[in-house]
């Protein structure tokens, strides 16, 4: 850097007050949320599938299975519903934006570091909040599941944090695949993983071999936490939380490394 350039430019060239930097993070998150809440092709399937499944299997058909079926399936379909904003909101949009040049433009622009990923993360959390609130409303209003305030708050918090490992997994898949191939690939992750983790049927109804490998899937661990939160199961929650955190960090690190190298 030589002196002539310094004198030609304002002394604070390129520096930005912290308030404006924070404003940039907020603007990015706001845009990310707005664009997806306005895209029915994104929001409808995320809301529709868990909602419909819960209505049919958790409320209408569960009456025969006793009062706890609606409670059990609230947790399981809640996890099922929370996975998709993470996987699809993060993974598909990243894959499309790597392909369409938006990510390249964002990297060239002076967007503050991480604002792009943070915006997507908040968007996934917002979508997960909408799904969880919808399922909670159905459980309380239609199935009359007796839930304490602590249980409702606990399940909501579990969903908000539980979406994060799936954001990391979606992000990793989004860095592996470019463009239109990503949704199909993510379905291949999402649906089998939900099934194998006992989100659709209780694990005890699956073959023994599949029960044995269930702890491999992050959704299994999130389901255990969610079940404990609504008062089913008495195992300690902490090991599952640690597995989920480790899983999330591992995929996040892998994804960031790939983004740095491949772009």
């Amino acid at each position: 850097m030589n002196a002539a350039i310094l004198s030609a430019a304002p002394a604070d060239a390129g520096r930005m007050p912290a308030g404006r930097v924070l404003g940039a993070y907020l603007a990015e998150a706001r845009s990310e949320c707005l664009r997806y809440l306005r895209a029915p092709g994104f929001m409808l399937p995320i809301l529709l599938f868990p909602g419909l499944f819960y209505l049919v299997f958790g409320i209408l058909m569960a009456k025969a299975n006793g009062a706890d079926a609606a409670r059990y399936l609230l947790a399981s379909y809640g996890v099922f519903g929370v996975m998709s904003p993470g996987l699809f909101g993060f993974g598909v949009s990243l894959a499309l934006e790597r392909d369409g040049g938006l990510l390249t433009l964002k990297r060239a622009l002076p967007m503050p570091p991480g604002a792009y990923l943070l915006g997507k993360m908040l968007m996934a959390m917002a979508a997960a909040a909408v799904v969880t609130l919808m399922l909670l409303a159905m459980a309380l209003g239609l199935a009359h599941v007796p839930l304490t305030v602590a249980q409702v708050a606990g399940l909501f918090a579990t969903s908000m944090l539980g979406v994060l490992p799936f954001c990391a997994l979606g992000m990793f898949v989004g860095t592996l695949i470019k463009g239109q191939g990503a949704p199909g690939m993510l379905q291949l992750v999402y649906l089998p993983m939900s099934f194998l983790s006992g989100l659709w049927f209780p694990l005890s109804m699956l073959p023994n071999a599949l029960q044995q490998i269930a702890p491999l899937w992050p959704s299994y661990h999130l389901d255990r936490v969610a079940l404990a939160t609504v008062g089913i199961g008495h195992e300690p929650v902490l090991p599952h939380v640690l597995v989920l955190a480790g899983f999330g960090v591992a995929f996040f690190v892998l994804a960031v490394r790939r983004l740095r190298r491949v772009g």
Partner: protein
Amino acid sequence: MTDATVARLAAVGKRYGPLTALDGLDLVVRRGELLALLGPNGAGKSTSIGLLLGLIRPDAGRAELFGLDPQRIEARRRIGVMLQSSNLPFTLRVGELLRLTMSYYPHPRGYDETAALAGIADLLQRPYGKLSGGQQRRVQFALALCGRPELLFLDEPTVGMDIEARQKLWAAMRALVAEGCAVVLTTHYLEEAEALAQRVVVLGQGRVLSEGSVDDLRRRVALTRIRCVSDLDAAAIAAWPGVASATRDGAHLSIATAQAEMVVRRLLDGDPALAELEVQRAGLAEAFTELTRDTTLQEAA
């Protein structure tokens, strides 16, 4: 590095597997100038821009933006960028995209001023996805200039624009340069470079083939184009001394030569019925073709 350098590539090398994209390239962008970067496809234009923006890292040499590593955000806060293809979010309104991009910069231009300068004041309420291709390019241009940049990168900015939109964009670019903003422009439209650029750098095979003003570049290629209606044999004329090329297009003959006076005399002697004679100094297009012909031939071989 001179006083007024805003961006620079110094002896930069970049390879993609067995392919050499840039081969010891030196490039300097000076404060307030409009630099056109020309070259055939694969010459290294996009790689050069990518290096200056910090999108890719050089294998050898250095890339600098305001004397800093281009990946430093302090450097990038002083630039504006319009890339060749960037699909912006379809569901966001133009005004929302503009406000978002303005939030990245320390001292952005005013919202209305930006919209007026880029000619998008009538589009601000529309969702980006509902715009035509040319309108989308104008929005991308607005995003590039909204941060009051000292250096603007425009990669093929007028592709897909109609003539009127292109003229407006040219006017906006001139206004920005008048404010002291430097512009790096890549384009396939040579008349665009001819109309706007103060300096032209022609790349070929990852090296600088020529550098100078538009007039310098024209002068390097001392060709003149002769057009006329005549039934003389084009192949025979091509063999005349001093004739670079001669082709027939219907009734018209088209001849490129460094010795126009001599060739015109010989043409008139050879065909008393010759009509519609036009003699024109070579434009940038001819100069460009001449400069890059060798590399194109090498590539074809």
